[in-house]
């Protein structure tokens, strides 16, 4: 089966136009980065920009996160439902939607959606989201650990016209901004979304003018058909079977998420039966978010090299019992989900797919140990220049990747397109002083191929006019929340956030000593679950990022690779000996081959 199989469009025009569509979605994303107001958008690639057909099917996902591309597709369809027979959908209208009980994932991710017309007829849609810096929820920044129902989580719009026939509805715009703590920045965020949708409109209209709208529609149909047929063919290559895994979402309480993948013919059924009932904190996922996460996982594993579009919807089916953490019902709160429930699901869905991949000779090399833990923090307060701010720390971008078949995980490889802030940038803008930022030693899951090392950082307050700042600790916490090992590889050290208070770090600094050892800093320590916290003068926030899980037995690892890890500060000499069975000479610059062989034999015998 090939895309040219139904033969309506010649393969050359098809190649040229599908490339163009990708470029347009990409250009929308660049526009978001350029005009956006939030570090999430401008520096961390936490946004979405994609194109849809006239009916709201995903046409081109560009470089965006798959789960949002799917949810925005739902949003487009909901806008069509709501407006088509009522107020109407006119050329140059722009819509806004952020209701998780309609299509959004949580309220902070605000969708802006625009129809694209050619000579009065609707031929496509574009959509974007950015994670706005504030949405008027209980906690600054939108992720509200204290919320127990959706109404605590900020403004919730099921769909409205933000721009009517090309004219911004200033009253609506001002009303929305008025409900947030950061009107200037949210204003920038909404403007960048409008600008990106305008770009999409101009470019698509250009193509329609040049090639005709009918050809565009044929191309859309063919590339969607193509993606579907490739995925079905690839799924069909595996023997039928079923693979399960469980993961825990941990806050003050613990919730279980259970997933079984049933592969039947050319279909994948993700069955979440057995997952816990929905929570009274915002870790819950709406159904479409659960679907979107599985959609993204399928594309990342089986479809990384094909156009990402609606064709990936067809072979996927989701079973998510209503009233559970994976299919929350009103009025369950959801604001924490992207860094808890969805993060857990982003671990589980690839994890069961990896089990399936491992059953096939031709796919085994694509197996990667999955990552579960992703933690970071938002912070807000008055900065050293006397201005109120809300921002987030981007340490999550220096997580370690899971190990792969034949390859170590990438150290501090992060999450694809996200980018970690420079220490100097943070210190210039906020009342913060970093004490260290480095790769975590012995954090990566050991294995024949080890997981990628994540980072650990510690920071304190410096020059804060109010004597401290506020924070929100984000992400799933608990012990089994980092990279999981596969095929005998070990799991990685858990990611965690620790708040230390009344430490002696400033005494050390005054005595010209670098506070590099968390244990030696003194004061009290508290593990932060998903919660609000205060970082006061003399306090330290310690953040340990997730590392990657290992692949295969650590005793099978090349001793020279272990030596390199010791030299690079990723594995200690003790772990080299006890876990990898590698003996180094006294200078720790050379492997003692004979001693290593003996050591490994002894460990094997003891097992």
């Amino acid at each position, binding site marked *: 089966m090939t895309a040219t199989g139904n033969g309506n469009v010649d393969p050359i025009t098809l*190649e040229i136009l599908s490339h163009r569509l990708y470029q347009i979605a990409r250009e929308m994303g660049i526009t978001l980065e350029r005009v956006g107001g939030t570090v999430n958008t401008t520096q961390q690639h936490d946004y979405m920009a994609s194109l849809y057909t006239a009916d709201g099917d995903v046409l081109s996902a560009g470089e965006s996160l798959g789960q949002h591309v799917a949810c925005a597709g739902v949003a487009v369809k909901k806008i069509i439902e709501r407006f088509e027979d009522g107020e109407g959908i006119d050329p140059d209208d722009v819509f806004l939607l952020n209701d998780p009980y309609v299509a959004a994932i949580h309220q902070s991710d605000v969708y802006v959606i625009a129809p694209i017309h050619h000579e009065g007829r609707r031929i496509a849609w574009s959509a974007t989201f950015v994670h706005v810096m504030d949405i008027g929820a209980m906690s600054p920044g939108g992720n509200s650990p204290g919320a127990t129902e959706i109404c605590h989580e900020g403004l919730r719009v099921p769909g409205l016209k933000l721009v009517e026939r090309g004219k911004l509805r200033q009253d609506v715009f001002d009303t929305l901004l008025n409900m947030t703590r950061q009107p200037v*920045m949210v204003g920038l965020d909404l403007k960048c979304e409008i600008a990106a949708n305008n770009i999409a409109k101009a470019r698509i209209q250009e193509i329609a003018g040049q090639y005709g709208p009918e050809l565009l529609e044929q191309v859309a149909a063919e590339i969607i058909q193509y993606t579907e047929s490739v995925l079905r063919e690839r799924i069909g290559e595996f023997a039928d079977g079923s693979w399960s895994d469980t993961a825990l979402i941990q806050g003050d309480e613990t919730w279980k998420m259970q997933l079984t993948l049933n592969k039947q013919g050319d279909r994948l059924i993700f069955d979440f039966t057995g997952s816990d009932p929905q929570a009274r904190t915002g870790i819950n996922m709406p159904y479409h978010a659960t679907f979107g996460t599985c959609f993204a996982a399928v594309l990342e594993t089986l479809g990384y090299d094909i156009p990402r579009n609606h064709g990936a919807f067809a072979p996927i089916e989701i079973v998510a019992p209503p009233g559970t953490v994976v299919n929350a019902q009103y009025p369950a709160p959801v604001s924490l989900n992207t860094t808890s429930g969805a993060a857990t699901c982003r671990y589980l869905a690839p994890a069961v797919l990896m089990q399936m991949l491992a059953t096939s000779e031709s796919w085994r090399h694509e197996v990667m140990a999955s990552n579960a833990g992703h933690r970071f923090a938002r912070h807000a307060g008055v900065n050293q220049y006397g201005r109120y701010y809300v921002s987030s720390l981007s340490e999550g971008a220096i997580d370690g990747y899971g190990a792969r078949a034949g390859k170590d995980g990438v150290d501090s490889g992060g999450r694809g397109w996200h980018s970690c802030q420079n220490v100097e*940038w943070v210190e210039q803008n906020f009342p913060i002083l970093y004490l260290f930022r*480095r790769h975590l030693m012995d954090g990566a899951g050991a294995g024949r191929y080890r997981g990628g090392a994540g980072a650990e950082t510690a920071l304190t307050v410096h020059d804060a006019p109010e004597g401290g700042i506020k924070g929100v600790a984000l992400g799933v916490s608990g012990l089994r929340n980092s990279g999981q090992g596969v095929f005998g590889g070990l799991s990685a050290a858990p990611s965690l956030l620790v708040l230390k208070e009344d430490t002696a770090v400033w005494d050390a600094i005054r005595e010209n000593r670098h506070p590099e050892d968390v244990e030696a800093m003194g004061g009290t320590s508290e593990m932060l679950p998903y919660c609000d916290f205060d970082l006061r003068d003399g306090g330290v926030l310690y953040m340990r990022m997730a590392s990657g899980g290992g692949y295969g037995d650590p005793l099978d690892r090349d001793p020279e690779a272990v030596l390199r890890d010791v030299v690079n500060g990723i594995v200690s000499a003790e772990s080299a000996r006890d876990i990898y069975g590698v003996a180094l000479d006294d200078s720790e610059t050379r492997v003692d081959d004979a001693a290593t062989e003996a050591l490994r034999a002894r460990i094997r015998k003891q097992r």
Partner: protein
Amino acid sequence: MVGVDVGGTFTDCVILDSAGKLTIGKALSTPDDFSRGVIESLADGAANLGLPSVDGLLRSTRLFFHACTVADNTLITRSGARTGLVVTRGFPDTFLMMRGNVTYGLTEAEGQHIAALEKPEPLAPRSLTEGVQGRIDYKGSVLIDADDRQIEEVVERLVAKGVESVAVCLLWSIANDAHEKAVADVIRRKHPGIHVSCSSDVAPFLGEYERTATTIFNAYIGPRIASYLRNLRQSLADRGLGNDPLVMQAYGGMLSIEATSQRSIGALESGPAAGVVGSKFIGDLIGEPNVLAADMGGTTFKVSLVRNGVIERDYQPVFERYRILAPKIWVASIGAGGGSIAWIDPTAGLLKVGPQGAGAAPGPVAYGLGGAEPTVCDADVALGYLNPDYFLGGRLSLNKEGAMAAIEERIARPLGMSVVDAAGGIFRIINAHMSDLIRRCTVERGYDPREFTMVAMGGSAPVHVARCALQLRVGKVVVPLTASVHAATGLISADVTYEYGMSDHVVAPLDPVRLNAGFETLRARAAADLAGAGFQDEGTEILRSVDMRYRYQVNEINVPVPGREPVGDDDLERLYARFDDLYEQSFGQGAGYPEAGREMLSLRVTAIGKLARPSVQRGGLAPGDAREARKGTREAYFEEYGDFTRTDIYDFGRLSPGAAIAGPAIIETPVTTIVVNPNDRAEMDAFRNIVIHVGQEAI
């Protein structure tokens, strides 16, 4: 004056004599010792000029300009210095972390394959990384003192591990460089043979990751560049050159050998920069202030821009997989060249072209060097654009049958189409990719392509780029007379240029006293360097600018601050207005958000020492007749006709200024082939450049 450009394959030489006549020379590059190729290309130039020897040429040379690939070669082959890194204690992995940007510098397809991602091998390994005591904050205040004894220990440890070069990059050295200087002093005092690069000298800008990467690059290539330039100076002096050569920088200006040896990062990609300067030179010559420099060689297609007579710069370019804080000429590129391979995506059944290329060997099938995969060049032969018997002036004969057979077997038959349709498809797809790149460089950045003239560089460009011009409505494509030695031409048109900058983060309103003090610091350094290079005040130009952005936004805009006088409050108001204008121009209407406030990030000063040069000779234009130069006809394919058509072939050498040719036609030169499409018209101008006037009809 003489310009010599050492490229990957050829070393080119351009001589401009006092009468304004241009003479060229060419030799093969000699990677084992590039200076040998330099002398050989000078010998060729001297012979073309009727001089008996290189010595004769060099003795009468007033200015010698040079660009070389030594820095790029050092990087590509990873043959740089054994480089140590000194960082602030507690931050040993900044360089390795790369801010988590594991996809920087990768193509879109590579970035999406998560299971295959890797970070590059670091130029300075962790085993040669040492942390020193000392901590400075954002204000430049010392929180933790440096410790001289500990610095000495660290230095001795690195020396014991055999480092040849050391990069020093400490947190906040841009606010207070005392600790960096302390480390550098110890190394210079105790180990004068070791090359030292301090981040506060090399890249005095905010952001420790990028600053570290820049400093490491400088440290890694510095010793190699320094020793090459030292040898070159000697061997030219031995042959009679009376003054020191000047070396091309990636930002388009010239620097002395000493300056280049210290700040060698500027030598990276300086050859391509010279090519862009050459395009600006052509633009100046023919009176076109907006130039789209389009360079299509065997493997890549590159685009740079000249706007209003100023070459666009990139202040944070990506080299390989790293973002670097050293200005260079802005260039965008994709893997699209004559050697790009056409293939069928096995799952999609779609025809793809590139980004993989066949390289120089085996190269396209038509070269007959063992290449089996059809390339863009093979399609160009199959479509009748390239003359199998007169490729590169007949230096290489092309196997047209072989090319067609490969296209037939690998593309046409599997897709069920004719060879011609397959070749035409390859041609259209590569042109579409190139048009997309030009679109990204212009339309997406708010520039109208219709305001530009395209200058076609590189062997493959004149076959293809008129199609891109048509697609994007660029009205004029120029194929310069000096196309084959384009970069060397750029060399002889460049001026001595020093670049200075410093980070200074201020939220508007700016303080004129502080701004003037900053500019004065940079200006004083500029004046001293210009005087040291022998420039008097009247022959110099000092350009001031600041990098600004809207608060909370990411895009920085370099905004000129005209004049030399101290800046006053009125000037600041004009500066803000200029920034708002430039921002809208670059990022589109409504992109700016003045309500959020503006901020300044850095000050910059460019110091130019103007070099006097003769103007290039202009020929007399004789009206119109090209018939004399017609050397025959050939069947060539044009999509306007959907078929092959009998096409006139012209000999470039026999065309005279003023000659006009209506498309379809093909003009053959000893170095390239120029395709004039059906609705286009070509003419030879007074400088013997070919100018193609592109029709306005959409494809």
